[in-house]
């Protein structure tokens, strides 16, 4: 008996692989197959790692390695440690300072690009200039700050040369202020692009309509432009918050390791092979980050970006 053959409809091409059209009529199978490669990738690189960290946080460890003895001791240790809470609070403060600084710098810059710069070519060039430093490694961008902001660095030399200061400013390097300053400029690339692109999507007619209805420029900005750029702000804020929470290198290279954040806490546990307690702190850090993202979603549904 001959098998029925799937003939293409009139005007359509035949499916290149036999049976594929039949498969396409099973949407759940198709969905599964389409998301399988990406899911496997995520599962291996993210899922297994995350599950491992959570499991290890309930184990004990020391010089002889990890023991699967399921205990709450690691969590008791960190939750009863005053330094842990102080460091967690400081980490949140740094996130706040960095986010505020990045928004205050990026928003006006994006607005300038959108409203003031008329030439599309110039817009592209200027936007590219904010992204180009991102093409170098994070470590290189951080380390280049040292010869600029050190006691004998370019900035201090210039300020002393002009006569603004008599002694070099120590605060420009190896201080918490220097660390936050460096983080503004490291993370600004994540904010300026999303804000600019959300501004670009605003219909000029909407702004014109606001003016026609008697709204002054400031009122138009607050009630029309700002709400419409919320998606870009929130997208950028998401990046900045998550990256700052995990920050450890700038804290050491620019901050002088004198104001450590939670990620540095984890590293110091790993240094002495205490993987279990390091995992417990990692779990707490992940939960804190998820809570922060959750709070942000109360202001804006990030799924709409």
């Amino acid at each position: 008996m001959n098998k029925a053959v799937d003939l293409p409809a009139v005007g359509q091409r035949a499916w290149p692989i036999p049976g594929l059209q039949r498969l396409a009529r099973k949407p759940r199978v198709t969905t599964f197959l389409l998301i399988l490669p990406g899911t496997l990738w995520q599962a291996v690189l993210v899922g297994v790692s995350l599950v491992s960290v959570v499991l290890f946080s309930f184990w004990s460890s020391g010089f002889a390695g990890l023991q699967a003895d399921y205990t709450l001791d690691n969590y008791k240790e960190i939750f009863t440690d005053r330094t842990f809470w102080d460091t967690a609070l400081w980490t949140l403060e740094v996130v706040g300072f960095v986010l505020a600084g990045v928004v205050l710098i990026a928003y006006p810059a994006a607005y300038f690009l959108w409203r003031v710069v008329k030439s599309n070519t110039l817009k592209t060039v200027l936007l590219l200039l904010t992204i180009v430093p991102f093409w170098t490694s994070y470590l290189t961008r951080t380390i280049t700050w040292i010869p600029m902001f050190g006691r004998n660095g370019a900035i201090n030399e210039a300020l002393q040369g002009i006569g603004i200061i008599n002694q070099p400013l120590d605060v420009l390097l190896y201080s918490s202020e220097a660390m936050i300053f460096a983080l503004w400029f490291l993370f600004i690339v994540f904010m300026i692009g999303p804000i600019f692109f959300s501004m670009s999507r605003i219909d000029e007619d909407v702004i014109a309509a606001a003016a026609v209805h008697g709204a002054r420029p400031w009122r138009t900005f607050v009630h029309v432009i700002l709400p419409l750029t919320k998606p870009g702000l929130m997208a950028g804020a998401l990046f900045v918050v998550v990256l700052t929470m995990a920050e450890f290198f700038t804290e050491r290279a620019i901050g002088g390791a004198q104001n450590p954040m939670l990620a540095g806490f984890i590293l110091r546990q790993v240094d002495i092979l205490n993987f279990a307690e390091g995992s417990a702190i990692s779990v707490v850090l992940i939960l804190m980050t998820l809570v922060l993202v959750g709070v942000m979603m109360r202001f804006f549904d990030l799924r709409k970006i």
Partner: protein
Amino acid sequence: MTVEIDRRYFLKRSLQMCGAVGLAGFGGVTLVGCGDEETGAAQLPPVPAGAADWEPSVTPRKDRQFRWEPLAEGKHARATGLTLSTIGLGVSVQDRFLKEFERRTGHKTTPKVTTLTAMITEWLSGGASKYTTVETNANRNSALWDHDLLLPIPVEQVVPWKRYARDLFTSKGALGYDRHNQWPLVQVWVDPADQKEFRLVPQFFNCDSIGYRPDLVGGDVDSWGVLVDPEFKGKSAILNDSLLTPGWCAGYMKANGLADIKDTANMTHDEVDQVIDFLTKKKKDGQFRVIWEDYGQCVNVLAAGEAVVTDAWNPVVEDVKKQGVPCKYATPKEGFTAWFHGIAIRKDTPDIEAALDYVNFCLEGWWGAQVATQGYYSPATTAKTYLDPMHRTSKKFTDWQWWYEGGANPRPKQGWPVNGRDTGSFDTRWGNIMHWMVWPDDPDYYAKRWNDFLAA
């Protein structure tokens, strides 16, 4: 019928699948990892004939006795089909060393350079099977030894050892031997009493102190106390290490009657508290300009004058000098802090011959001569054979005279420049040891209090 795949559906389904596969994957890995694997120890080759009479020679011998001996310029040993896969720090795992090893022996090499923590972590989490040897600090070696990952190496297999080993690694009467902790013998030997098998074959060693800018300090430094001296407030830097930094501070406080500490290398909780509280007060007073993390940062900090005094590794000072900046290594009256690095062989490596050839290569003399200009000592006196004719550091003094005998100054010399090693001869340095950097009984407490210090 078509199903709309919107972002919400996609996120929900893929997160569910991700979690499920993640759990299954972890379960699978655990089951596989819990398997009762039988791994046999590597089969040791027979003890090489003529080993007892071997002598080092800079000039390649016509009929080489061993693969790792010097080979005539331009020649390359025939390929053996064996591979040495080694992991270690950048100071010991270097392309120039491994290329010479390949040339002499015909073995292939696969190096990996990483940090101490990363290499131990990798070995303990199942990564050991990728390597033939590990080049580690002795205080971390116990972690691998206690996990039964390493092969005891019969002393006869290390040809240069019998006649050329330094007594620091064989004798309790040697300069620098710590009677209290029994270092370094207890880390070198499976049984220090009979010394028949190595736990860790010493590869290079040194003792640390303070790097300083004599031009900015206005003189010479002779105490660890300079790092906590208010005169250098805001100009002092210390290493971000929960074990090493409290160690030297304990030595300083004990020697100056500031604390009652029995063993500065392995402190009790009370003793750690005394040291940390002292350092915390200094930190709050603004004593430290930076708490440095890595080698390059230390070099930059000293060279740029961000700090004028810092606890430092010897090569840091040498690298600062290479930039034309006056920099010296101090001889502290409280003593130096000692350490050694060694090579250990993985228990069931199939490339045991390559591993033993590498151990012998590192002690043959050439390797030791290469690391000498970084300030490191070789545990075998074979390096003298190579260093005696060399004048890489000074026209007047041979490299041996400079790096081992102190050049013009077997005792540390005041002022700048110094025509020899800053801290004097080998005997001067090793006769002045504060402690060896051992792994303490409770490193967790050190780390906990160190976090308190950093967050203060």
